């Protein structure tokens, strides 16, 4: 993956110390591979000239890095205080019913991963659901089924557009 290597070199140029580029490098690798597989970690380690162990040690600290495979789409429901007060638990339950899985988990067809996450910073516009890194505010239980339908019909790259 020459383009990943080049992307990481471009990130390194922004920092006086190449180690500063580890988070952007891991993010690019996750975008390329879908998750931080051993192969992805190896690519990051090589591009940064750091040990794979160090890359895993850093990656495992952060919630947004996946050290296990995830579905084609990732749906994250904030259930922290502000969202919970206005009904995010009911939204999460509806997702669990719709996808037949308890959070955190991936639907049996491997399409959609459901996670419960901490405060996303949309507290006055809750409940907030993040769908493939894009926020959807004021989310209601009745929005669950149409969203899942749309996600099932689209490939991962389409939902980013």
């Amino acid at each position, binding site marked *: 993956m020459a383009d990943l290597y080049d992307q990481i070199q471009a990130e390194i140029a922004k920092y006086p110390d190449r*180690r500063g580029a580890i988070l952007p490098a891991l993010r690019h690798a996750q975008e390329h591979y879908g998750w931080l597989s051993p192969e992805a970690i190896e690519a990051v380690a090589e591009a940064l000239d750091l040990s794979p162990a160090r890359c895993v040690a850093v990656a495992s600290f952060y919630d947004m890095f996946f050290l296990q495979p995830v579905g084609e789409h990732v749906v994250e429901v904030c259930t922290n*205080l502000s969202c919970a007060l206005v009904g995010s638990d009911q939204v999460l339950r509806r997702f669990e019913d719709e996808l037949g899985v308890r959070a955190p988990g991936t639907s049996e067809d491997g399409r959609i991963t459901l996670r419960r996450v901490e405060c996303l910073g949309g507290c006055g516009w809750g409940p907030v659901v993040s769908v493939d*890194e894009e926020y959807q505010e004021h989310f209601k239980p009745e929005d669950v089924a149409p969203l899942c339908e749309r996600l099932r019909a689209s490939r991962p790259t389409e939902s980013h557009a």
Partner: protein
Amino acid sequence: MPEGPTFAPPTDQSILLPFAGTRREIAEYEAHGGYQSLRKAVGMTGEQLVEEMIASNLRGRGGAGFPAGRKASFLAPGGERYLVINADESEPGTFKDREIILRNPHMLIEGILIYLWMIRGTAAYIYIRGEYHKEAAILEGAIAQAREQGYVGSPLMGTDYVPEVYVHRGAGAYICGEETALLSSLNGDRGQPTAKPPFPAVSGAFKKPTLLNNVETVATVPVILGMGGAAYAGIGTEQSTGTKMFSLSGHVRHPGNYEMPLSATYRDLIEGQGGGLPEGRTLKAFVPGGSSMPILMPNQLDTGLSFEAVVAAGSMAGSGAVIVVDDRTCMVRFALRTAEFYMHESCGKCTPCREGTRWITELLRKQEAGLGSSEEIDLLLDICDRVEGNCLCVLGDACAMPVRSHIRNFRDEFEEHARLGRCPCPDDAPMSELYPPLLRAPLPMVAAT
């Protein structure tokens, strides 16, 4: 489809965001006087700028309220040095920095450039939380526009100083909002706090002297230079000057971010701007400054929004995140949800926080399920006392302080759960119990010594 964020209209006293909607384009920003404060700043020396900041008496908007001018004066002199902007906004209830970035990104960029000039910084890094995908892209766009305009990456307005600004995205960790953890993360380590000293002003980003400030603090600087430090100090109270963004959420008719002078009260915010509670509901309690702060009670609604007024009321102003809680809410669940968050976000480095947040959460989970006891409520208070003030950073305190306040103010509710052997709340109460009780075995009870 769910609608997007709904921005509250400006208040009468708005000086930071005195307009409706967004001004993301540099041309729009400049048409309203944008980058004029930077021009003014370039005509001043670093010392003069620090003096102006001190005259404004601006206090940091991230949570601690430290005087921003004095902070800038602490930076070790000479050589390679960095400015880091804390855009890791993660304190539950807080979404104000996000609104500043979404609506007026150039105000932040201008503030950064003024700060950079003031300290002759090598570069600025905006550490933005990883979840703020769109906001990071907006900042990248604003920096690119400022670069085209010659404000970034080329000699600044006829001087030989070349400012540089980068966006650095986090990857999901509340603790990275803590300054030393943020710097660990920026330096490419796990985002764990470090002991102080050394302070960031001596050894921070890339082990160089670093000045670290919150988004709102930096975005306020162009306003201060525009109106003058003394005039800014005339707004608010003597010890808490100016206006501040307050994030209002929970059981309130019109949630949103409101810019309030620091001389206003929680009643002005919750009832005035927020329109009070929805029909038929009454106020049970409110969080005054993010979920880590002790809650306040309805009879404290007339407390001022200033740093000193909230301290006098027994809590702290924190990030300015106000969460309104109505009478139907189970305070045991509220406490549990609060504690779960801090347990999840504890970095695990120091024992009191790692173990304390876990114990507090487990005991609250038992309590919520009706499997606790009066003795265990005392044990909870005891653990809170042992955690607070004994951790490497303030995350442990952030769990202990609110939970203690939930118990102290609503002890009867906690006792009722134990007495009934279940949560007495109706099925339609705002929060459900997400975990089936005792999904995991409860911790063995040991006597507190």
